[in-house]
């Protein structure tokens, strides 16, 4: 579609695509002032999400989540290891987030993405603060062997709000994971296998995921609140706020505003929490839906 845009004060007209390239803020502001966004959504609407599990045959558990065009894949691998001597009954959860260079125009090989670490720590926080994962439930034999959950989250297509999609993928992958059956003998030696899979009871060999944390990111742009920003909107945003709530219980388990040039007032933060509450059920349902 080509339409001509008038830039106030100039007689020249130009194509929409060129206008967007040269004056991204003016282009975006034209939509926001009408209460809509370039992709047609109202300011408060999040994109639809979909979840699929069991997508990686080589991992113990895996999931693929799409929020709009943002695509994130998570995989869980369980390794038996020795516990920390100070915490002999606790296992480990190691979350690694990767932005491979193919996921967006701004990621390049060899340069570690700054967001990767942030997203990884937020996913970890969400899982522990909501008590979704309890490290004490990961013991195999106290003092000798515990499970280490290696959770790898790969962003395959970065169209904004990777943390939201990443947390959904992490949850789904953890719920999908099948814990390998292990046997520890008297001398403390561990062996894998032993029991055939069809002899397992339905819930045996699963990681206990006791909560369902959901994250919703909101961008602040010229005093407007934009829920679930895509990549272009994130680039223009002055700040973002991510609120994490537990779908089982409705309590807020985390809120993060990592810097940014704009400040968020108390009302803004309350609106962000409300935005999270509005989208909580839909996202939790999307994750549950994958297991039906």
């Amino acid at each position, binding site marked *: 579609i080509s339409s001509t845009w008038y830039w106030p004060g100039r007689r020249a007209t130009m194509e929409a695509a060129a206008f967007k390239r040269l004056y991204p803020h003016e282009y975006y502001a034209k939509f926001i002032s009408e209460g809509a966004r370039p992709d047609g959504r109202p300011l408060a609407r999040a994109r639809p999400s979909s979840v699929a599990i069991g997508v*990686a045959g*080589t991992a113990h558990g895996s999931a693929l989540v799409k929020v709009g065009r943002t695509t994130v894949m998570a*995989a869980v*691998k369980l*390794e038996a290891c020795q516990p920390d001597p100070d915490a002999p009954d606790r296992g480990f959860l190691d979350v690694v987030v990767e932005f491979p260079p193919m*996921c967006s125009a701004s990621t390049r090989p060899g340069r570690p993405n700054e967001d990767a670490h942030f997203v990884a720590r937020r996913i970890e926080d969400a899982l522990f603060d909501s008590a979704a994962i309890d490290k004490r439930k990961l013991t195999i034999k106290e003092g000798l062997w515990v499970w280490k959950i290696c959770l790898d989250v790969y962003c395959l297509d970065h169209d904004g709000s990777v943390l939201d999609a990443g947390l959904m993928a992490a949850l789904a992958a953890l719920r999908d994971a099948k814990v390998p059956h292990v046997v520890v003998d008297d001398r403390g030696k561990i062996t894998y296998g032993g029991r055939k899979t069809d002899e397992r009871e339905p819930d045996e060999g699963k990681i206990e995921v006791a909560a369902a944390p959901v994250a919703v990111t909101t961008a602040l742009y010229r005093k407007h609140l934009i829920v679930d920003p895509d990549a272009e909107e994130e680039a223009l945003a002055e700040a973002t706020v991510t609120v994490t709530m537990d779908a089982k219980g409705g309590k807020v388990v985390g809120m993060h505003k990592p810097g940014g040039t704009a400040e968020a007032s108390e009302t803004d933060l309350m609106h962000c929490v409300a935005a999270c509450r509005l989208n909580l059920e839909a996202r939790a349902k999307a994750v549950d839906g994958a297991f039906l």
Partner: protein
Amino acid sequence: ARLRDSRPSQDARSDSDPTMALPREDGRSAEQMRPIFVKTGVISQAAGSAYVELDKTKVMCGVYGPRQGGPGTDKAEFDRGRLDVDVKLATFATSGARGKVAQGDAEREFSSMVHRALSGAVMTETFPKTAVDVFATVLEANGSELCATIAAASAALCEAGVAMRDLVSACTVTRNRRTGGADGAEGGGADGGADGGADGPNALLLDPARGEEAAAEAGVTLAFMCRLGEASQVVATGTWDGDSLDDAVQLAASGCARVDAALREALRSSVPA
């Protein structure tokens, strides 16, 4: 190098000669490829992208550019563009323990093999002073990842509108000792070379799965431009004698023809009517 026959080979040879048919782990015959799935337009942010599955081997590739190149572009020739390839292996791609995030040499070697396969086809003179980036991630490695990556890269480059002389397809053929043979059977690399003979203890396997690759005595990977009938890269490992290497390359070329057909089908169906 010009190859004689790039049409898909008939499976009649293996059907009529029972000693040729080698029951493989997944029930395929020696000359049978795994099912190929290709989908383009899978990464919204990229200029071109493709997802390729060779049964359980899964690779996703995104192409960006032509755009400003990374460091070192200013040293490039003024009348040509640069083709940069980077392939990553996901940490969960292999069964067993989690891989390391930065895998270093193996990934670099892999990337440079993909680069060499594509360089023969990409017309870099059409984007001087800029770079085209080909980024791929292997999501699941179950044999023939190199072939799947080259195929995905070709489709993604095509979708991105990068000028190419032809699509590049790739296929691997390995020489494996037949299973179920007598213990201590003779015929290692030196002795048992040729595959055609009914007495030969070895078989040429097209599109090996992971287990077959690991157990192979020798292998050859062919990157082939089917319409032009030219090979852009041939990598042979292990010892071969002339005849068996020729047979292996012919077999690989027939596999490439199938990959090429799958790529064209996917690209054709992605063009809006």
